[in-house]
């Protein structure tokens, strides 16, 4: 399995933060740390080309898209999440991969922004969860 470095970052961050309020979450954190460090998962680095692309993407769309469904998170948190999503899309795309995500709408926007910047390169493929219909 392949994940991007920002994906590993947000996973470990979320679990590590849980540990501070719920010590039993420590085992889950340890499990994921071992998974990401082990041979079953390849963590794609956020490298040079990805950082150049991510900067351009953020400049084109600095704020997270406003969703159809209500997002309960504070505005600052949504902005951090949007920067991570930009980094995830840039990392996957420049490494030659597509993306599997539950947040298809935002990543399809990023796919379109990348295609706008680099129209001659193969676009980012965005897949939803198994069985989900493509967005219209």
């Amino acid at each position: 399995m392949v994940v991007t470095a920002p994906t590993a970052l947000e996973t470990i961050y979320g679990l590590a933060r849980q540990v501070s309020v719920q010590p039993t979450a420590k085992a889950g954190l340890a499990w994921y740390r071992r998974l990401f460090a082990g041979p079953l998962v390849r963590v794609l680095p956020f490298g040079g080309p990805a950082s150049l692309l991510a900067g351009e993407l953020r400049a084109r769309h600095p704020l997270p898209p406003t969703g159809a469904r209500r997002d309960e998170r504070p505005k600052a948190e949504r902005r951090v999440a949007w920067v991570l999503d930009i980094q995830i899309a840039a990392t996957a795309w420049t490494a030659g991969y597509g993306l599997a995500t539950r947040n298809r709408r935002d990543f399809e926007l990023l796919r379109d922004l990348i295609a706008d910047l680099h129209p001659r390169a193969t676009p980012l493929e965005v897949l939803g969860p198994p069985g989900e219909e493509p967005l219209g």
Partner: protein
Amino acid sequence: MMRSYALRCVSLRGMSPPKATEDGHDLPDADAPAGRRQRARRRDGSRTTLRVPTALALTARRYADDLGTTPNDALIRLAERGAEIYEGEREVEALAAERRAAVLFGDAFDPQAELPSPEWVEWAIMSAREE
């Protein structure tokens, strides 16, 4: 989609794999009768003879026992799995090269690039943190 491979049949007969690893662990007995083996399906492609490394031959025999097929068939199946991974890696690397080139030298590349002033760069960098 798997392609057609030239490798069709590899003989493992006459090989004498070791009974134990170098650190003393027992290995499965290659001469022991296998479970219910079925005749492998016939494949298209050319015949060839290869020297198979001992460790790979042992894996092929274990895999053959698991599947109830012949060691030759198991070896081809292992090769097909490896080939699928290899083709996937090639495809990903080709896409990555195309996309990296687009970012580094392609559509966004401006031949009239010019070093901006330090003040302007500082303002630009800080603006990314202020939004």
